[in-house]
């Protein structure tokens, strides 16, 4: 597989007075070039922290403690965790090669700067253009993301725009330097359903145009079905299943993935089965669990196998489909 980014054994931890939070606890992930990888999982499972780790935007008391994140560029590979977080090289990558958009369109733009100037600033940071040219490019990209009257909108402030328009502006800013990878952390969670569909369609459209990879974080399997080429399911700081969107929906291998699918209306394979919330709740983040982290909530948990030893690694079910379930590793025919 041709990847734009490879994450190996990533550990990101927060050192608090109450203890250590293992927010990301051994994530392995490859983001395919030009495609969309969706990361799903309940809230608190480490999706956002994985994304922030890629850009090295983890602030104290958090720190990447282990693992590697390699960006595959035309000029050669670069290991991001080795770069100083706010050094020149990292800053050149942020916004230019890897851009990120956030969940809250209401607060992701500065309230005291015009929307246009915030987009133009990104252009000026990464491209050698003068102010007028930067402005022209900003207006152009604003038009491209479907903002009506981009000239007029340029001088407006975020509070003068609707949530949908703001998220378009944020997308314009992120895409203004034609990044190869766009990280989108729940970009539509705060929006109305219709606006959400529009924004997702826009992202697909621009992805094709720019040939860019998208790492889309969501806890909404409906969004996954609509957007994903590949899916990574995360639980408690780790990827527990990885596969193409078809495989994940039609032949999930990990009990957690199955439970997630069951909890979602209208998407489950057996249409008549009842909606079911996942039993129990996510374990306390300070805890350390032996074996598979999901064993506390898993119906198929086998004492002596699932609750002892190291956390299980991903293993291949078939090409491109990986799972970390200990039981089904033994009896793959069950799947």
């Amino acid at each position: 597989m041709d990847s734009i980014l490879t994450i190996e054994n990533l550990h990101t931890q927060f050192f608090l007075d109450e203890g250590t939070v293992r927010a990301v606890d051994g994530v392995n992930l490859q983001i395919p070039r030009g495609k969309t990888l969706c990361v799903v999982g309940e809230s608190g499972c480490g999706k956002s922290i994985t994304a922030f780790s890629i850009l090295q935007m983890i602030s104290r008391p958090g720190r990447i403690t282990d693992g590697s994140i390699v960006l595959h560029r035309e000029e050669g590979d670069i290991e991001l965790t080795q770069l100083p977080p706010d050094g020149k090289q990292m800053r050149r990558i942020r916004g230019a090669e890897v851009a990120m958009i956030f969940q809250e369109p209401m607060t992701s733009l500065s309230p005291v700067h015009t929307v246009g100037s915030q987009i133009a600033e990104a252009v000026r940071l990464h491209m050698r253009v003068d102010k007028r040219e930067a402005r022209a490019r900003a207006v152009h990209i604003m038009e491209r993301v479907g903002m009506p009257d981009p000239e007029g909108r340029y001088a407006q402030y975020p509070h003068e725009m609707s949530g949908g328009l703001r998220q378009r502006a944020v997308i314009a800013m992120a895409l203004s330097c034609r990044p190869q990878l766009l990280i989108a952390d729940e970009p539509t969670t705060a929006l109305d359903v219709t606006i959400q569909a529009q924004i997702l369609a826009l992202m697909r459209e621009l992805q094709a145009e720019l040939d860019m990879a998208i790492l889309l974080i969501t806890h909404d399997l409906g969004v996954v079905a609509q957007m994903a080429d590949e899916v990574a399911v995360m639980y408690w700081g780790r990827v527990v299943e990885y596969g193409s969107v078809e495989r994940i929906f039609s032949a999930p291998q990990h009990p957690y993935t199955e439970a997630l699918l069951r909890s979602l209306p209208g998407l489950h394979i057996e249409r008549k089965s009842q909606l079911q919330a996942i039993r129990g709740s996510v374990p306390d983040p300070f805890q350390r669990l032996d074996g598979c982290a999901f064993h506390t909530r898993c119906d198929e948990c086998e004492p002596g196998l699932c609750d002892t030893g190291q956390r299980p690694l991903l293993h291949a079910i078939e090409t491109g489909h990986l799972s970390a379930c200990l039981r089904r590793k033994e009896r793959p025919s069950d799947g």
Partner: protein
Amino acid sequence: MIHLILKRLLWMMPTLLAISFISFALIQLPPGDYLTSYITALEETGESVAEEQVEALRQRYNLDEPFFIQYGKWLNNLLPFGFTRQDSGSYLWMYSEGGVRSFNWPGFKWPDFGMSFEWNRQVVELIGERIFLTVVISIVTLLFTWALAIPIGIYSAVRQYSIGDYAFSVLGFIGLATPNFLLALIFMYIGYSVFGVSAGGLFSPEYVEAEWSVAKFADLIAHLWIPVIVIGTSGTAGLIRVMRGNLLDELPKQYVMTARAKGLSPWTLLVRYPVRVALNPLISTIGWVLPGIVSGSVIVAVVLGLPTTGPLLLRALQNQDMYLAGSMVMLLSFLTVIGTLLSDILLLWLDPRIRYEGKA
């Protein structure tokens, strides 16, 4: 925006009128008046005052008139428009000496703040000769406060819970808790014993009456730092807390992350985004500088013997020097209202969110 400012200006009028009335009432509130206390003071020293003389003074200053008439005349004198005074205490509705009814039309005129009984001089003169140095001290103190508090506030927020943050917090609380006059005494002592600067005042004795010159200016600078530090310390300490708190509120906000994800350098990012937003609430404190110019740190000024307006106001109030006290209280309130308006306009200009609400 213009509309909003005009509206605010219009609203100021009734406010100012109410303030003037309350000021006047307050001045009149204590029993007796200036003349009574003046006469008592004279009699205590053994001098006697002729009845006729007292009566003449009473007439001259309208002291026997009803409260509202006194207030009306006082207000009329303060305003830059209205009836002009013909001679001491006579207005259009009075007969002039020749028995001919003189009449003058209301129009524009210079405000007349009246006489100070105690100093036997024009109030305008008294305030005028002190206002320049008062303004100098106020502005220098303001600059000192901001120049110190803003960088320290930023540092404390960015390095929250670091040793530096704790050190500044402790210093700040000591600064807040130390009474200004105590600080004044300490600095006077240090100034005298270490730097050999004469204690108190803004000038060395030889320059007090001298014409302005380079040497006098240098002398002023040498004396200025003591009052500036004494007056500015508690303000600085307070402002550090405000700045630190504001910035701590802004730092974790999403737009800071967005800007960082753009690739901005940490310093540019900090100054251009969260600090810029965190400064806005400070702007609203600028309004308080103006009234501070008149009343500013009265006690410190008394202790340090500063030739500023603060001690003048204190004395006028103590002695029921009606016109002087009234004018100053009025001026004070006026400056407060103007200052608030100014900081509102500034905020309106700096913060698009407020501008937007105003429009909507």
